[in-house]
């Protein structure tokens, strides 16, 4: 994504200003544009770095743009109801819009600083949003994984092991889903292997003849979005089929 930040700032924001000169090489750009060339790099840091060219009066324009950019992302995120599962699509839409942002030829330094601030603000907020979503989904996955392990172990110990059943097919996942599944899978594995209660340890039900049941249970309980399958009880199962 960092490469994209740089590309965006370089190709859209600075592009028109550069094209106003006779040569597109940075060495022939105006001092302000040259100083802004590093603006995209600011996204690698927690707080955007003010471009050296945006000082004095222009600093206010940059900062105003920064707030505007952040506000734009927050407002747009609220517009999709802050749905974590929409994050990836949301980011693509925002980036697509930002990539088409251009400066008019002969833009003033104040305008260049304002535009740069806006782009920095947008990417800064997208980064923050990404981190927020990834962290929350990871924590959710850990909680579900721990609860699933507890149920699996309680049942396995009480019933002498569970049996094979349907294994859900995991489909593609995005930012939230991948964080959820990784956290849930790892928590389930760790918690079930160390689980003990009055009936004993769960470890034997995580290996050997139960390894596939344990793995299927992890897969099914930690799947982020299972395929729609109605619950049914086929008649031929009524008298059991053992494991």
């Amino acid at each position, binding site marked *: 994504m960092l490469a994209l930040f740089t590309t965006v700032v370089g190709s859209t924001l600075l592009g028109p200003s550069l094209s106003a000169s006779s040569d597109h090489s940075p060495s022939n750009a105006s001092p302000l544009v040259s100083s802004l060339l590093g603006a995209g790099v600011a996204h690698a840091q927690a707080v955007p770095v003010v471009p050296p060219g945006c000082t004095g009066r222009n600093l206010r324009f940059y900062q105003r743009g920064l707030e505007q950019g952040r506000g734009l992302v927050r407002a747009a995120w609220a517009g999709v*109801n802050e*749905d*974590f*599962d929409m994050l990836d699509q949301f980011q693509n839409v925002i980036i697509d819009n930002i990539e088409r942002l251009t400066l008019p030829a002969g833009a003033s330094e104040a305008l260049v600083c304002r535009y740069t601030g806006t782009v920095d603000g947008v990417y800064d907020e997208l980064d923050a949003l990404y981190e927020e979503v990834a962290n*929350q989904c990871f*924590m*959710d996955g850990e*909680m*579900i994984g*721990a*609860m*699933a392990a*507890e*149920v*699996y172990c*309680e*049942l396995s110990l*009480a*019933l*002498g*092991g*569970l*049996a*094979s*059943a*349907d294994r*859900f097919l995991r489909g593609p996942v995005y930012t939230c889903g991948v964080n959820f599944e990784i956290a849930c899978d790892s928590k389930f594995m760790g918690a079930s292997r160390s689980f003990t209660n009055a009936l004993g340890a769960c470890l034997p039900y995580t290996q050997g003849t139960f390894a596939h*049941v344990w793995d299927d*249970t992890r897969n*099914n*309980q930690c*799947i*982020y*979005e*299972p395929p*729609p*399958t*109605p*619950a*049914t*009880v086929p*008649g031929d*199962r*009524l*008298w*059991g*089929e*053992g*494991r």
Partner: protein
Amino acid sequence: MRSLVILPMVLFASALAMPSLADDDASATCAGDPRLERAYRAGFQGGVNIVDRAWRSGEGCPDLPRIERVVLDALARLIVPPGASAYVRCRAVGVGDGADKQLYLLRSACAREGTD
């Protein structure tokens, strides 16, 4: 935030409403928000699946009361951690409802089998 012990209540409430509980209906607290509804559905299918595994490990209908007791006991002991997000709570509610729904289907099927 105080600790939430929701599954027993959910199971009790679901048992009362069982005949009208559709597979893809999120419970009232999780309805309206698409992501929470997906969380509920994922939990629901997980609940169905875990009961299915418990059921298949037994000896059929004569063994159902024991399996049901074990499943309900395990779910009743499950505590949603304090501070859990709405997503986690809805997924946990779904697990309880899915398990309860599957137990209900098994009870019904075994009752029919017993009267045939």
